[in-house]
């Protein structure tokens, strides 16, 4: 299995396509991360757990006989209110503080969510079956599940809607103004508290969409949150805050990297390689910046 990638070029094509479809999903989560990081200056370790929670909402709809694809609409609505609740309880107390405080506090939320989901839904690996079938390409050499194509399509749709909303609507303008300068925005009459709550809610809703799509295309498990957080963090630091094309590109790149790591190193090293890549990217950027006597800020 090890070096199949080099012997059969079609597998490379398969890995690339899989990776790109997967990466679009990552980019959606990372967009939420970039949004809250840019606006509220917090890093949310519980991001991945919000994704998994969104996935469980879709899974439950599937259990009750509703097609899980409707989760794409239901789950963000529920997650929006979950996000606002988290903001009111915890996040509003860490917004102005040191970033490390927000990391630790959200780590606590992450542990809490992980365990609550473990109680509520059990520790089994589950998936919501969408019955979408598969698409064969290149003389049946490349197999793509339709659910993956569907999920990529929905992710792009949501991302476009969000971008338009941020550009055109009043709240979107308020969010962008707060991201640029919270104090000035406050002076000009923006209720920053409300903007923060809405931002976190939108982020949670994005996680909800991504989670619902992940429950259709892949599997979900209560403890699988942290890798999604790390992936989105990684995408954001590669692309930079507020750079949407960059987020999309680096998301796809990460997806492709992961698929190849899966084929070449073996599935057991997949998550490990993601975490190692994060370390390598940070170290690379550190050396690149230190040539100009600067550091990552």
């Amino acid at each position, binding site marked *: 299995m090890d070096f199949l990638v080099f012997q059969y070029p079609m597998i490379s094509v398969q890995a690339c396509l899989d990776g790109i479809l997967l990466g679009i999903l990552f980019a959606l989560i990372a967009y939420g991360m970039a949004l809250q990081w840019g606006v509220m200056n917090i*890093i949310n370790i519980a991001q991945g757990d919000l994704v998994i929670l969104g996935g469980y909402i879709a899974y439950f709809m599937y259990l009750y006989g509703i097609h899980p694809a409707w989760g794409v609409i239901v789950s963000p609505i529920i997650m929006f209110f979950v996000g606002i609740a988290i903001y009111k309880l*915890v996040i509003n*107390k*860490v917004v102005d*503080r040191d*970033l*490390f*405080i927000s*990391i*630790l*506090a959200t*780590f*606590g*939320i*992450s*542990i*809490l*969510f*992980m*365990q*609550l989901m473990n*109680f509520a839904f059990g520790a089994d690996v589950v998936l919501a079956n969408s019955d979408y079938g598969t698409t064969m390409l290149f003389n049946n050499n490349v197999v793509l599940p339709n659910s993956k194509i569907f999920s990529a399509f929905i992710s792009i749709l949501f991302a476009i809607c969000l971008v338009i909303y941020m550009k055109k609507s009043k709240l979107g303008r308020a969010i962008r103004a707060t991201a640029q300068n919270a104090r000035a925005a406050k002076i000009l009459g923006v209720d920053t508290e409300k903007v923060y709550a809405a931002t976190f809610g939108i982020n949670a809703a994005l996680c909800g969409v991504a989670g619902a799509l992940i429950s259709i295309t892949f599997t979900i498990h209560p403890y699988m949150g*942290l890798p999604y957080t*790390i992936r989105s*963090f990684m995408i954001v*630091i590669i692309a930079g805050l507020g750079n949407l094309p960059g987020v999309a590109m680096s998301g796809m790149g990460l997806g492709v990297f992961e698929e190849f790591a899966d084929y070449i190193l*073996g599935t*057991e*090293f997949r*998550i*490990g*390689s993601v*975490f*190692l890549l*994060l*370390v390598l990217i*940070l*170290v690379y950027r*550190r*050396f690149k910046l*230190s040539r100009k006597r600067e*550091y*990552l*800020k």
Partner: protein
Amino acid sequence: MNKNNLILYIGILSFGIAAPFLFPAFKVQLSILCVLIILATTWNIQGGEMGYNSFGNILFYGLGMYLCASVQVGMFFPLAEWTESGGEKTFVHTPAQFFQGMAVGLLVAAVVPTIVAGLIGYSILGLRGHYFAICTLGLGVAAGEISGGIEIIGAGQGFTTPPFPDVGNLESRGEFFYFLSFIVLILTFIAVRGIYSTRFKLILNAIRDNEDKAEAMGIQTMKYKIVGWMISAFFCGLAGGIMGGLVGYIDSTDVAFDGREMGVFMVLMAILGGKGTLWGPIIGATVFHIFKEGFWTFFLGWQYVALGVLIVVIVIYFPEGIMGWLREKYPERFGEVVDEKDRKAQVELK
């Protein structure tokens, strides 16, 4: 050292020596407490004093754990066959072999993580603030995931450490591990106390307060940061080696590189007690351990929920810790001179 301090130290020392005989049922818990104190105190060297909040000291802890056990087995028996047979006792250590292996193992478990810290220090410590935190978190989890895929140390199914040899007395296992961890704890305390009374600590504090300025003052900050991290790694490795023998079973993600539990615990204990103080992490670890065992006993099954809530509450409402709170309340005890006028003016400002 004044008279009060001396009495305090003698009191703690005699309590430490008498504890396993006073509370024979809690020997394992007391040993774990010692290990936790070591972890919190050494985290504090670079987390509290240097301002580099690391989630990655778990890397050295897990490394020490695996190294100590592997050396202990590998010195006398083929390592691959040992892990192959799992928990089956095909090979039995004689007492002499066990203790010899443990001594060499602990030495290796202390030295290798120190070298690793020195090697990766230059690249990792160039990152600052939350980038450092996330990077070290990634390191810890990556180490867990990767060691879970390596066959010779048991891969996903875990690694059984050599069982304690039969030396005639049933109580001796607990006593051995308790005194081992207690001695290492005392050594750690002496070392850390020694460090904190030198210029080295002031340099670490300067790095915490303003690294650029410290550099501009002519301090080679990178050198000191690496040394600080290496000291942490040394004691973390030792603590890991002891903990491996104490638990008796090493699993890659649940025992050794347990970034979600032990990795957060050490940060939390130091914060609970008070970052950047000598006694803070010790008090924090003791209080935390008592709380944790209480949760584990009374809220069985809900312990992680309680833990998550505890983390959030401590971080949000208690970021200064116990020592910070005491310091605010009784500044005179900490040798701070308080100007009454100044204090009143500050209250009015608030």
